[in-house]
């Protein structure tokens, strides 16, 4: 009896110690206001999200420390173009959305941005995954990733369970599953948004990035848009051609999808699509739209998001920044804005925001939503940070367009490879 008691005690104490250890990281992050709590002011955030409820949740949480601070999010029409004008206006925002490609295209986004790595700001950038922090040539960090995304496929688990199938983890398994589903009467084993792009983007682009990752020569050539660099796309385009040739995709049905967000989700919630190629951005809208879908409400099913298996080894976790926050260095409430950023840039808050929006957190300590759980199972070598890849936006667009041409049967692989650098 004594022994048993001792054993139980040891186990309980051990668990307590372990749990204390686990909580330690977040405990260290406890936010301590540095300004007077009675500080009043207004923080305006602008972006291209028509809705940003996850951020509004953060506003509420920040207001617990600073009840007199008003935080406001505003959607800007034609954001990418208007942001530079807005930043120059009297009503310039305090925080604005940025992405690496936008910053590259729009110098104003960079010029107005504050260096968030400034030690005096005490913003805990160390909680962000290294591959997601972009430093400018001066070593400044003008954008902090808030959400990241990836590419893959939404899977209707109920269909797989019904048909006795396992979710494919390799390309061959994908082919096998699609074959069986097709045989089972599923007209569209796979669907995706195809307008002006490739519905198989989630399949071939991570494959392409995986192929060139670490190949500096290839990246230099691609960035230089050298015609010969088109060859670097061949493997991925072959993949597209092979997949399309098997008849698993009904292009007409895919072309009916009006956009890569609402329409894709709505169609997926119809419940008859086993796999829907999409991005994490699309996944972020699923939860909210469940109740908006009469089909889903009537016949709910379990679904999850998985890497698209493009090789025999599996798929890739291609991690790109979805949105980042930059602080307007000319903000009228700069101290308050920096205080909010200090509050926001923490593992707990960013993970919470990601969970609320069903996006992928930029934090090292990833707390992935259940829907992304299979991405957590991938090996470290399968994770590719696009920003670290060094691929410029122009070759990126060329590859996308080439993929779309092949996917839609408008070009052969050879033609697409040959046309690299010439796509408009």
């Amino acid at each position, binding site marked *: 009896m004594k022994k048993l008691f001792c054993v139980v005690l040891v186990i309980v104490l051990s668990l307590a110690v372990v749990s204390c250890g686990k909580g330690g990281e977040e405990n260290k992050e406890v936010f301590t206001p540095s300004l007077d709590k009675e500080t009043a002011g207004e923080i305006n955030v602008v972006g291209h999200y028509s809705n940003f409820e996850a951020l509004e949740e953060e506003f*509420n949480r920040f207001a617990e420390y600073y009840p007199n601070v*008003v935080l406001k999010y505003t*959607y800007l*029409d*034609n954001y990418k173009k208007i942001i530079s*004008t*807005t930043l120059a*206006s009297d009503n310039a925002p305090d925080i604005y959305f940025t992405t690496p490609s936008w910053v590259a295209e729009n110098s104003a986004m960079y010029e107005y941005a504050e260096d968030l790595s400034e030690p005096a700001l005490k913003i805990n950038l160390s909680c962000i995954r290294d591959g997601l922090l972009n430093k400018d040539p001066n070593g400044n960090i003008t954008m902090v990733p808030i959400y990241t995304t990836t590419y893959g496929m939404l899977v209707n688990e109920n269909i797989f369970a019904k048909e006795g199938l396992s979710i494919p983890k390799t390309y061959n398994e994908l082919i096998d599953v699609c074959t069986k589903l097709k045989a089972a009467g599923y007209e569209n084993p796979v669907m995706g948004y195809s307008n002006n792009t490739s519905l198989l983007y989630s399949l071939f682009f991570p494959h392409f990035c995986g192929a060139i990752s670490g190949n500096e020569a290839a990246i230099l050539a691609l960035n230089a848009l050298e015609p010969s660099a088109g060859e670097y796309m061949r493997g991925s385009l072959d993949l597209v051609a092979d997949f399309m040739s098997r008849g698993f995709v009904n292009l007409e049905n895919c072309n009916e999808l009006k956009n890569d967000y609402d329409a894709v989700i709505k169609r997926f919630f119809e419940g008859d699509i086993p796999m829907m190629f999409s991005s994490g951005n699309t996944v972020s809208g699923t939860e909210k739209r469940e109740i908006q879908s009469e089909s889903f409400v009537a016949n709910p099913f379990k679904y999850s998001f998985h890497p698209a298996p493009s090789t025999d080894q599996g798929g890739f976790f291609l991690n790109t920044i979805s949105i980042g926050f930059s602080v307007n260095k000319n903000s009228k409430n700069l101290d308050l804005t920096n205080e909010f950023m200090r509050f926001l840039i923490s593992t707990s808050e960013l993970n919470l925001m990601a969970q609320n929006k069903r996006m992928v957190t930029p934090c090292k300590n990833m707390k992935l939503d259940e829907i992304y759980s299979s991405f957590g199972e991938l090996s470290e070598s399968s994770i590719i940070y696009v920003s670290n890849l060094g691929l410029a936006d122009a070759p990126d667009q060329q590859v996308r367009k080439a993929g779309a041409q092949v996917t839609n049967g408008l070009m052969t692989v050879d033609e697409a490879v040959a046309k690299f650098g010439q796509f408009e």
Partner: protein
Amino acid sequence: MVYCIVVSGRKRLPQGPDRASVFNREGESLRRKMLSLLNIFIITGILIFVAVYSRIDHENAYYNQVDSFENMTVALENITQNYLEGEQGICDVWARYINNRHMTLEEATLFIRESHVLKNTSSHLIYSDTMRGLSTRSVSTAPDEYEVDYRNVDIIGDGKWIADISQAINISRAYTNPMNGEQSLAFINRITVYDETSGTDREAYLLRIVPISDLEEKWAFPQSEFKNAEISVINANGDYIIKGGSFKSSNFFEFYKSYNQISNTDLQDLKESTSGETGSFVMKDSRDNLCVIAHTPVRVTNGWVMLNYIQRSSLDSKTENWILIGVITVGLLFLLAVNTVYMRLFNKKLQQMAKEAESANKAKTVFLSTMSHDIRTPMNAIIGMTTIAEKKIDDPKTVSESLHKISMASNHLLTLINDILDISKVESGNLSLNPIPFSIVESIENLVNISQPMIKEKMIDFDVRIDHVEKEYLYADNIRLNQIYINILSNAIKYTQAGGRICVDLREEESTDPGSVRLTFIVADNGMGMSPEFMKVMYQPFLRQTDSRVNSIQGTGLGLAITKSMVDLMHGTIDCQSELGKGTTFTITIDLPVADKQPDSFELGPIDILVVDDDPVLIETATDTIESLGASAEKAGSGPEALEIIRSRQKTGKNYDIVIVDWKMAGMDGVETAKQIRSEFGNSVPILLVSAYDWSEIETSLPDIGINGFISKPLFRSTLYEKINEILGVEAGAIESEDDYADLAGTNVLVAEDNEINWEIIHTLLEMYGIGSERAENGSVCVEKLNAAREDEFDLVFMDIQMPVMNGIDATKAIRKFENRRIAQIPIIAMTADAFSENISECLNAGMNGHIAKPVDIKIVIREIRKIKEKKQ
């Protein structure tokens, strides 16, 4: 019935009065609980009423605030409508002008630029097909750039919703002005401009742009209580046109759904009610706070709704006066507590009073029963003995014995009646004292004599010890004083078992009052004693100790009450020490004035006296008394010791002049000692036998024993002085005797008495004392006789009260009104059976000089006559 069966099945209930008492107690308990419940119910009711009333009042105030908020929203909608109509009107005027003038886009832009007055507003003119055109103001970051592009700013859509000029207000959603990045609204008109390139007219849109920040300034709530309100305007889909800070999401209904549980059906209803009518609803905002949303359709728009947000707490006018409720609650609870405590105390007191009343009633019932018995017993003797005397009228001895027994029974009956009268006086507070000079010696002797028969009957060891009583004549109401002493002593005798012991001590001490002495009278017995509980209430009337041993003893339960009252009246103290089964000691201490009259000084001269007594106290007091008389006293604690002392003294050739021996001594008693003295020393020394007992049984054998005389305890100075002198052949100092009635001779009394027998009695009694009397049959005759009498014909009047024709009171009043003042002032003494205090007061108030209760005690009558004669002299 069922109840009785159930109860009897579980617990046997007492029967008879006890059973009723149990039910009464249970009923009382039930009533008390019901009353408590009623109190709690009423208080709870009041509190609920106050809380509900306050709540309703608060809710009414809240709803009034909500109404006010709604009204304010409607007022703002009116302002908005006017504003929108005004803005649209400007746009209409411009559009109409442009259309009429057949302008190119550039000309129209120039015209509007020149027409602009307001600094913050601008206008955009864009071709409907390309959605590009010109702005009246340049790009904020490029002063020369006037081209505007709406291709990626979808605020017009297909444009079909835009009504013709002046037909409606065409207003866009809130959008980002592509020229300056500001959130703005646009009033839109479709216009036609001339295209110089094609030489044809082209459709275009004229947009009058108003920054939302300008509108927000205009939409401030004027009332201070709504200063925290926020305004939003949504379109028919719920998308914000204007978005207040607390409104979240891009669509109001999305916002609602995000923070409030609502079904799709209810959401649809909410949409319809919001867009269709003015009203309000409550919802949770993003901070989980309850807020009130007042809504009203903006009439001039196509489905716009003005939504005003305010936190619900801001509309709470705080009319709920919790302090008031708290104070009322605490007050009521305090009152309840006070009332409960007070009622409990009051009930307890009432219960106690009821118990006392019940006890007193019970005591009275017992008392009446006892009285009935006690009255019937002597009455039986009186009637029975009277019958015997009548039957044996020829047998003088039997008649004499019967008369003696009738007399004794009558006296007992009188005592009972006197007790009743006394307690009546005590209860009415009319007990008064009639002080006169009296002899304490006589009083004590009388006390001993009265007690003798009972003491003898119960074979009680009785002693009376007198210590330093030097002042024999005192001034007090001796009748009341005797009554006190008799009551205490008779109680001791009654409650001491046969063969027990009673000791009476009388002590004279110095008083703090000048001219007074302090008499301490102690009666100690070893009787049954009293319980502490009874001692607490023993002075209350009609109460007797509940004891099986006591119940067999006759008593009225009035003695101690009367005694205490009398002691109090005499400003004395009465103390009692008692222990159940061990005995009782009463100590009465009274300061009494010393009377002027004192006996002549007692002086025995140089004689030697031997005092023999086994009681050390008594022997001590006796020797002290003897020595105070100037004689020499020696002490012997027993008979053999006395013999030895006498023997020793004779050896010296001397002898005692007198030997005083106590009768009842342990071992050799007084008689045996006397015999031994006579046997050994002859008859030369006189022997006095001392006793507190009746010596009649040995009186006849005195000469044989050789005892020269008896002396009764207590041994007062005067008693000793007289007896010793008597034995030694010296005449004692004369003490005034009351047996000489010569002073009464020639006294003539008018007796107003309607009853023939009573008249005969008083007449005969007075005659025995040489007092003449004349009868008046009623008050009227009495008045007439006095009216006709000579001034000195009557010395006084004995006036019965209840008489026919004229009662004694009226007669007295009439006499007092006589013109002849001498006759009018004749002493009138009430002689009546109306013996209660109020009767006495009535008599005195009518002008009488005194009151004698029937049956008359001739001694009292004589005393009254003497008093009157003394005054007269």
